Each structure stands twice: as structure tokens, then as C-alpha cells.
């Protein structure tokens, strides 16, 4: 157990931001898909894992980490292009819970595909050489990869926010979250918007998978582990809420990270305690209706 000092607290805080940004990034796609299509994407975590493995293979072949990031995003987004039109589209007219069950089936399929391709044993993913140093940030030395990761995830979140705020497609997506039928009756081809949002959402999860792979290494169940935490993020943040996903991702990341100073096993449970407390006191979530 870490000794409780100012520098250890600072490290925990930064680790909390680092983990929280990954949670937020994965949860954003989840919240968007949920808000727009009323689908709880159970396979979201496995798209994250798929991205991590795509990135790993690319990095092994080319040694270029930035290419790995791109392949992680594009590969997963393309697989979304198969899942959404072929399977998910049939579920929109049905009760939302059936979409969840369908995606659970997709989760099982992706899980086994990952095990078939990359094996069931965990694979270490070492931090790219250029980023394997420590940076002196005044009080402490902090791994430069973590700083890189925080920067990349923050830029992505900013980029996504600008996309949703500043473009016409972003406007349509936000309007769709508010009232899907209204947007449809205004003559927008909603199907294309759905496909785009799904691919974007899972693609970002895939990219988050590549970014976090050097921190947590690769194993087939990595998607399942992050999925439930991201669902808690969405439950706390409110569906379809971009802001909610970022705030509650950061809050949960910090809570989980700081609790490791207090008592190590607490880190895994504190997220659920937060959820229980919110349900008691504020069942609608941070930015819920």
C-alpha cells in the first residue's frame, strides 16, 4: 500500500484523471448510442478490446504507434458498419431491452473471435519507446506515456464535442437524442445518422482500447471489465449526455484511484458504492432528466 504523502496523492490524482479519461471516452460512445438509438450496447467493451488487439497487431507489424491508433479506430468503426445495418437496425422498433440482449450475443461472438485470433492468454503491450520516459513536473516525476494518454483522450473529447456542437451532422445527432421521431419527420435520413453514430461510438472505444493497452496490457476479458464501469458512468452521467459522461468518468476514475491509497480492494468496489449512493439520493444521475 502506498504511503500517504502529498506526492502520492498527486500521483493518484493524475492516475485518476488518466483512468477517468479512458472511462469517459468509452462511455461517451455508449451514451451517444444509448441516447440516440435506445440501445444499451453490451458489446461496447468488446469493441474497445477489439481496438486494442487491432492496435497491438499493427504496432507489432509496423512499430508505428500512431498508425496503431488509426487502425484501432478505423478497424472497429468498420466492424460497426457490419453490426449496425445487419443486426441492430432490426431492433429499433422493438422494446429497448431486446437490443441489449442482441448485443450480448454480439459480445459473446466478438469475445470468442478475439480468443481465436490472439489466444486466451494475456499479452503484454510495452509502452512505445519514444514515450517510455518520465517527465519531471515539478513536485514529482510522472510517466510521459500517461501524460501523452491524457492529452490524446482530452483532445479526442474536445474534438468530439466540437463535432457535435459545430457541424450539421452533430446537430442532427443531438436533435435525434432529444426527439428521434421529430428529426425523422423533418426529412432527415435517420438510418444513415444511426450508422454513423454507431461507427463513431465504437470506433472511439476502439481507439481508447489502443491508448490504454500499454497501461493495462491485453487480455480477452478486458472489454468485459471496462464495460460495467462505463455503464455506471452512463448511469451517473445521464443518457445521451456528453457532459455527463466526461464528468462522471473523471469523478469515478479519481474515486477509484484515490481509494487505492486508503485500502486497495476498495478501488474495485468504490465505483459501485457511488452508484448505490446516487440511486438513493439522486436516481436521475448528474445530468439526467
Amino acid at each position: 500500500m502506498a504511503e500517504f504523502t502529498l506526492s502520492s496523492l498527486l500521483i493518484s490524482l493524475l492516475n485518476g484523471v488518466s483512468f477517468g479519461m479512458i472511462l469517459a471516452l468509452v462511455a461517451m460512445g455508449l451514451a451517444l448510442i444509448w441516447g440516440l438509438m435506445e440501445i444499451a450496447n453490451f458489446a461496447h467493451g468488446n469493441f474497445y478490446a477489439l481496438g486494442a488487439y487491432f492496435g497491438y497487431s499493427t504496432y507489432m507489424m509496423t512499430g508505428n504507434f500512431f498508425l496503431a491508433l488509426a487502425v484501432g479506430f478505423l478497424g472497429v468503426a468498420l466492424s460497426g458498419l457490419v453490426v449496425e445495418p445487419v443486426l441492430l437496425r432490426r431492433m429499433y422498433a422493438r422494446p429497448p431491452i431486446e437490443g441489449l440482449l442482441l448485443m450480448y450475443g454480439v459480445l459473446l461472438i466478438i469475445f470468442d473471435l478475439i480468443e481465436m485470433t490472439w489466444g486466451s492468454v494475456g499479452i503484454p503491450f510495452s509502452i512505445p519507446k519514444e514515450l517510455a520516459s518520465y517527465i519531471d513536473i515539478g513536485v514529482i516525476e510522472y510517466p510521459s506515456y500517461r501524460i501523452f494518454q491524457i492529452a490524446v483522450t482530452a483532445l479526442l473529447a474536445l474534438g468530439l464535442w466540437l463535432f457535435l456542437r459545430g457541424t450539421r451532422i452533430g446537430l442532427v445527432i443531438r436533435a435525434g437524442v432529444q426527439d428521434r421521431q421529430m428529426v425523422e419527420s423533418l426529412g432527415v435520413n435517420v438510418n444513415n445518422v444511426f450508422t454513423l453514430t454507431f461507427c463513431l461510438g465504437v470506433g472511439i472505444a476502439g481507439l481508447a482500447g489502443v491508448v490504454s493497452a500499454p497501461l493495462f496490457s491485453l487480455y480477452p476479458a478486458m472489454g468485459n471489465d471496462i464495460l460495467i464501469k462505463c455503464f455506471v458512468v452512463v448511469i451517473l452521467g445521464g443518457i445521451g449526455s456528453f457532459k455527463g459522461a466526461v464528468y462522471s468518468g473523471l469523478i469515478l476514475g479519481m474515486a477509484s484511484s484515490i481509494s487505492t491509497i486508503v485500502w486497495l480492494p476498495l478501488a474495485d468496489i468504490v465505483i459501485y458504492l457511488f452508484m448505490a449512493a446516487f440511486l438513493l439520493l439522486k436516481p436521475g444521475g448528474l445530468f439526467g432528466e
Partner: protein
Amino acid sequence: MATSQSLVSTERLRPTVSLIIVALLFVFAPYILPPSIAADILVFSLFALAFDILFGHMGIVSFGHAAYFGLGAYGAALFLTYAKLPPTLLWLSILAGVLLAGGGAWVFGFLSLRRSGLYLALITLAFSQMVWFVMLKWTDVTGGENGLVNLPTLVFQIPGVFTVNMNSPILIYYFNFVVVFVAMILLYRLLYSPFGLIIRSIRDNEERVGFLGYNVQRYKLMAFIASGLFSGLAGALYCIYQRFVALHTLDWIMSGDVVLMTLIGGGGTYFGPILGAAIYIGIRDIISFYTAWWRIIVGVILVIVILFFRQGLWGMINTLRGR
């Protein structure tokens, strides 16, 4: 058609006859199927039936029912490990498991029933993961990843009359069969009582049930607790049969399994979940005999069932019979 008098009586008789057929199938199952599969089908039929109180009858999806199955199993195992009791009183461990699961369902049900639909499914899932983590990290008591092993066997005794040491799988199977069958009858009575009628009305139109003066939230919680208690019983019996308990009883794959069983058999139909449990365990066992990739096949089956056979097998049988 016969007179209405005899129509009523055959309608009443039909479930009794069906229950007797189910019982007979379970009596002969260990001689037809490999005994371990028969024992699994027995326990998971009860689990699926308990889950279906919420899923098919009340229309809410809990995606964390492994919590109650696992709490039942762990409750029984912890009791068997730590209670300093004579062997003839060890059957109390089943009660311990049931009560622990019921208590868990009470707390988690109270919290998660504040939301509905997708939210509820995910909140129940999160709570079951919390229980999973507690059992994983509390190594001193729960054995962590190894679970609790080498549990003592139950002994039944009426002094001076007989003593039975439950040390053979087949003895435990028939003990479990008796308990499961009694539980199935109890569940039948519960589901087709006024209580069952109310929870099905909640499924069909929650608001209207509220307007009729029923305390909807309380009925929901009661159904949740009942489901938790019977799931816990299934878990406790599973532990008694396996003679060990491990984390897979709490794994969310287990929660998914019970949804799948109920879905395949048909929710809300009483015999559907039993049929679904038998088919699911059968399929999984046959597949895993040939290949390690059972998940992908189960996943494909699930996708097909959701897309094309939403009412499940028993639902389809009912439709074909025109009911």
C-alpha cells in the same frame, strides 16, 4: 366439445399432469443423461423459473441474477465451512444460502427498482459485479479465486430410525430433486395466485395497476425478493451438489446464461424456463465436447432467437396449439 363443467376440470388438471411429467423426467434423467448434466438441468430449471418471475411475468430484465444464485451458493458454503455444528444440522446451510440471497435481493431490489428498463438491467448487473468483487477480494473468508472447497457432506438422521450420509452424487441428486420439485410447486402456486395476476398486470400496464390502488413499488420489490430467494435456493443446491463454490457462480456470464435459458424456452410460460434450461445446458455440453469455442455458437443462437423467435420454444408450441 364437452360440457363446460368437464372443460374446467381438464383445464385445472393440465398443469398438474405436466408437472408430474416434468417430475418423472427428472426422476429418470440421471439414467438417460450423464448424471452431472441431469443435476445441472435440475438446479438451473429452478434458477430460470425464479428469474422468470421478474423477466416473463413482471416484465423487468435483471441482468445481475448471478448475484442471488451466487449469494445462495456462497451462503451455503460459508455456513458449511464456518458453522461449528453436528453433521445432522448441516442442512441448515441451505437455509443460510436462501436467506443471504433473499437479503441481497431486498437491498439491491430496493435500490435498482428506483429505475426501470435498460437502467434497471445495468444497475442489477453492476450490483452483481460488486458482490463478485467482494467475494474475490475477501480472500481470508471466501477463498478468493480458489473459492471454498472440500465442503462437508450433509447427514440426515431421525435418531433410532435411519441415518443417511449424503456422500454419493446420486443421493444428492435425488435430495435436490425433492427440494426443487417442492420449490416448483410453490412457484406455481405463487405465479398463478392473485399475486401472480398483479405482477403480470404490472407488466402489461403498470400505471393502471397503480390507479386501481395497488402499491406497485411494493409488489415489484416482493417479486424481486421472491425471485432472489428461489434463485438463492438454486445456488445453495448447486453448492451442495458440487461440494465446492467458486467465483463462476457470481460471474456475469451466469447472469447472461439464465437470461438465455429463459429466452430460449420462452418467458412467462412456466414450463418454458424449464425447457430452456434443459436445452441450453444440453447444447452447451454437446458443443463444448467438440470445441472450446462455445461462446460464439451460443452468441449466434442468441442473436437468432432474439431476431426471429422472441417468444421462445414453449411460446411457439403454445402458438401452434392455438392458445
